[in-house]
């Protein structure tokens, strides 16, 4: 019975205010802009995923069936961060200059996994005298764990039909 009650209590995460999520995203964006990637990684848990499906893929895209650009579990995401901070990650050394803009934040639901929040983004990346623009939306699942808001899932959908303009996704969008 105790377990059932616990499960019932964990069933649906209560959403916070929209501005609380906005603040969280703005802080996340600052971490990425400033290359504070270890801090950023600490926003995730060992069960988290970070995925970037192919440009133009629908929100339902499944990394077990479709070819993505990025489909990281926590282990790979940890290495992605380690790699980005390594001078031997040639694509990001010397480091690119980035600007992450977040807008149109909406709470779209909540369930036993957490609160589902979506936002639009524009991310600029500059390196080698070329500035690339990535635009699209992020779908998050967020949950408060031990008093801290954590990212259970971040899925990034590009509003384009290819990467012909940018060529690569070597940063966190």
């Amino acid at each position: 019975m105790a377990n059932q009650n616990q499960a019932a209590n964990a069933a649906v995460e209560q959403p916070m205010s929209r501005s609380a999520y906005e603040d969280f995203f703005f802080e996340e964006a600052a971490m990425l802009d400033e290359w504070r990637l270890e801090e950023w990684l600490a926003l995730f848990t060992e069960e988290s995923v970070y995925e970037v499906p192919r440009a133009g893929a629908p929100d339902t895209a499944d990394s077990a069936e479709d070819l993505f650009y990025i489909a990281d579990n926590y282990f790979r995401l940890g290495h992605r961060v380690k790699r980005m901070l390594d001078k031997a990650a040639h694509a990001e050394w010397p480091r690119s200059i980035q600007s992450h803009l977040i807008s149109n934040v909406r709470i779209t639901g909540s369930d036993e996994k957490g609160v589902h929040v979506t936002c639009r983004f524009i991310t600029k990346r500059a390196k080698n005298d070329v500035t690339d623009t990535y635009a699209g939306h992020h779908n998050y699942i967020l949950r408060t764990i031990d008093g801290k808001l954590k990212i259970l899932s971040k899925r990034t959908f590009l509003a384009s039909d290819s990467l012909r303009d940018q060529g690569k996704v070597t940063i966190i969008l």
Partner: protein
Amino acid sequence: MPDTMVTQNKTRESSLVVDDRENGLFRVNRKAFLDEEILHMEREKIFNRCWLFLGHASELPNPNDFVTRNVGGKELIFNRDRKGEFHAFLNTCPHRGAMVERQESGNSIAFKCFYHGWAFNNNGNYATRHQKGTYPENFNHDGCANLIPVKLEQYRDFFFVNYDDGANSLDSYLADAKIIFDLIDQHGPDGMEVVGGAQKYSIRSNWKLLMENSYDGYHALDTHETYFKYLTEAIGGPAEMPKVTNVMNLKNGHASIEGDAPWGRPVAKWIPAWGENAKSEVEEIKREVVSRVGAERANRICQLGRNTGIFPNLVINDIMAITIRTFYPVEPGVMNVTAWALGVKGEKRDFRKRRLDNFLEFLGPGGFATPDDVEALESAYRGYAAYKLAPWNDISRGMSRGQGEPFKADDEEQMRCFWREWDRRMGGE
């Protein structure tokens, strides 16, 4: 073997390629990457004459299925008609030129041009009704109003087009490279399929550098240091490139390198990161392959990987996953790349996921390795701006090995196979 006129033991020197057999030196002039005129010649003498990869049969599983794509600079429709026959057509209306199909893929019994409404059956035949008297009675007696077909041939499930009516057969063109397709085809009992769409990206560099890079065994440990660090963690031990390798000159400019690399392979080489449950599954897959093709060939399929370049612009890398990659120059310093993942038909969800994860860890625009290749190719291209002062690329590695001593994957013989064919075709026959 009319396509294989490469003189194997003779020094040859053209203005762009120096193939000095006596002294074991091979050089390519950097002008070959930069010059607009050379790109123009490549379009005429290479892309309009060679067999170019179009698509895989698994992309069109049903009658009336179609995909559209740009191949060798031309917009094409690759489709199956009502009877299931495969076709390739130029995706341009014979009337005034607009594309008759603008979706990437679909299923359709006909194509209709949106500009003036001309319509075509999916076997290419003109199917538009006009009022009597609008056109002459015998209009289209010469087929001028049908979709224009492109020369199409297949080897196993791989379809190629050729824009030269006089071209030799695909079979003779592929020459010894057929063994690469044969090996891939045997990964699963029911063959292979393209998995979940294409990665389409670009590289700000010359297309020939991607061909070189795709089977360059020499760059792996330097360029991909961070991937090997990851792999060391993932496999729980040192990740080293193979000591014993095999370099195959597959004729006609095709070449492949083969070896036993440290990563796991979906067919069928287990690594600890996949867990104990996966181990027995991988062993089961391997047993199936052995029972079908015998132990020796199964070992080659399961244990060894291959990076293969099919002249001029198809890469089939059967490594930690299988990628099919093709690329085409938009201009001397920009190429568009399209890459697909190939998987075993009917494999379980867990395995498909593992295959795709393996792919993404190394390959593609978000991988731990491909972006560093891209950086190297783009960096080289910037360096070539000084080609008049620094004119030559060196591709001599391993060239002076004694007679009978085999080449190694971290030699550069595979690239020399490409360049000799390139030079032959560019130099006129």
